């Protein structure tokens, strides 16, 4: 996307990322030409529905590709080119520079090891002495709002609630002082009240340390509230890049507009959410040309001819021939 110019302060740049799986004879396309960047201290959202490829894109930043997938393009995370990197380089990247927080904290920690071990593991692997690593772990737990860290480090994951364990996972993600955090639906499994607390935590860390964050979510309201910029994905492609502020107030791509219209709102008029015909598609199922055209009320033959190029529309970059043509 044209907006993805490389900046010197970028902690993540993705350019022309393509991915396909399956046998070479009948490949299954997963991603097509994904461009995005995350600057230092910036929170960038990646929103879309199931199968849009948002998690695949986020994982690609760590060199986590599906088994057997063929990948091309360029992915630079914290100064390391990820595609084609050897295991040692990837291990170093994951250990020191880039951390990931997933939706389910229980899948991210070893259930039979104490929480303290989880937190000191990455530090010990870097050669930090045991005692110092332990002190750092206590510090981190305090920082993420766990009461009585001295007791907490000796407890097991099952002794924590989901929200508290997600704090532990975030503490672990921060233990190495990463340049970039990849947060894949980190609050989706939590209550709204706990979500707010976890978001407040991530946000204060971003401000204090200048950590860049790629925030993957299906929640438009959340993305609009916390992200500097937001990329909207549909069927393996980015269809719009816009600011958090304009995501809800001035969506340009028909798909973004459809998502906004379909989301029930807590404020303003109680207009009923407007359904979008059909269901979300993956890239493999999508029609030729614009992937959204079979669900788009403004689509015509021109949309079938080719994948629309990205063009500027106000503050946004949109892959559509007729941005903002669909009424909200």
């Amino acid at each position, binding site marked *: 996307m044209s907006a993805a110019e490389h900046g010197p302060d970028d902690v993540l740049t993705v350019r022309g990322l393509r991915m396909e799986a399956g046998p070479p004879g009948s490949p299954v396309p997963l991603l097509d030409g994904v461009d995005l960047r995350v600057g230092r201290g910036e929170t960038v959202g990646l929103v879309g529905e199931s199968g849009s490829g948002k998690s695949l894109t986020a994982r690609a930043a760590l060199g986590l590709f599906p088994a057997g997938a063929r990948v091309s393009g360029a992915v630079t995370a914290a100064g390391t080119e990820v595609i084609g990197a050897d295991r040692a380089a990837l291990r170093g990247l994951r250990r020191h520079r880039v951390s990931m927080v997933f939706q389910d904290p229980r899948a991210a920690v070893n259930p039979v090891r104490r929480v303290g071990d989880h937190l000191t593991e990455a530090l010990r692997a870097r050669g930090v002495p045991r005692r110092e690593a332990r002190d750092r772990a206590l510090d981190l737990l305090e920082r993420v709002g766990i009461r009585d860290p001295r007791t907490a480090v000796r407890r097991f994951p099952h002794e924590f609630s989901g929200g508290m364990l997600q704090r532990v996972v975030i503490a672990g993600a921060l233990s190495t002082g990463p340049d970039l955090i990849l947060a894949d639906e980190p609050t989706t499994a939590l209550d709204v009240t706990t979500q*707010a607390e976890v*978001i407040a935590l991530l946000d204060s860390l971003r401000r204090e340390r200048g950590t860049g964050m790629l925030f993957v979510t299906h929640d438009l309201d959340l993305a609009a509230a916390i992200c500097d910029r937001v990329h909207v994905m549909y069927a393996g492609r980015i269809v719009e890049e816009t600011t958090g502020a304009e995501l809800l107030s001035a969506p340009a791509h028909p798909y973004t507009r459809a998502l906004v219209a379909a989301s029930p709102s807590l404020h303003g008029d109680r207009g*009923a*959410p407007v*359904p979008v015909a059909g269901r979300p598609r993956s890239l493999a199922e999508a029609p030729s040309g614009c992937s959204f055209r079979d669900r788009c009320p403004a689509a015509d033959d021109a949309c079938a001819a080719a994948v629309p190029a990205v063009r500027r529309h106000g503050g946004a970059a949109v892959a559509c021939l007729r941005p903002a043509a669909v009424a909200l």
Partner: protein
Amino acid sequence: MSGGDAIRPVLTATALTKRFGSFTAVEDVGFTLMPGASLGIVGESGSGKTTTARILVGLERPTSGTVVLDGEPAAGGGARRRRARLIQMIFQDPYGSFDPRQSVARSVEEPLRLHFPGPAADRHRRVAELLDRVGLGPREGAALPRDLSGGQRQRAAIARALAVEPRVLVLDEAVAALDVSVQAQILALLEELRRDTGTAYVFVGHDLAVVRHVTDEVLVMRRGRVVEHGDTERVLRDPHHPYTRLLLDSVPSPGWDPGRPARDRRALDALDTPTPTTGHGEDQCRSSNG
């Protein structure tokens, strides 16, 4: 009870309490539901909203309190089938409530076989009707549950619940797992069905924006108790209880301060500790619009 043509509540829950050992999951919960009305139950996990829903449909027996369905208490051995005719439940993940080896149409047919014995041809016609009603065709009917998308499975679950023409549908986080474009389709379908059939809804959910759109009245639950009960629009615009405010402040919106809920929570916890009496603007209203 008022006789004649007076409209009576289709569901009355009175002083429902459920204890698991020494833990009280639900305490003194009560409300009435009129035909065609829609009541929301909101709260955090552990607030007792799902346990309340399960008591209503009979999946959980209350420690004390009563559920009256269509004028008669829902209890006792012979009452199970009657209860199933009157009240049905839809879960967040319909996959878990379908037999994975049976076609969707057959699953929808099952309650018909149980409740309306008669010629198979009639049943099959009714199944096709029900599937059509929720926007599924014969192709989806012949499919196995795993071959349908999440939205289609939820439609099938709704078709099956409607097969017995229940007076009340309990929806427990029924649209929470769906993509937003599909969620809007299901919400529109539910609204249409309520209008056409007069089925009343009890909608359990954590998403206040969704609850706002599908309910007229809402119960806010915290730690097993109802802390606020009133007209949905009023409760969301002008919450009386600090806990309701906490829930509302937690919802992201432009200019959102994610630190505020934590402050609300501390204020609320401070409020909890010393005072033994009720009060603090707790809305004790057990209003019925009947």
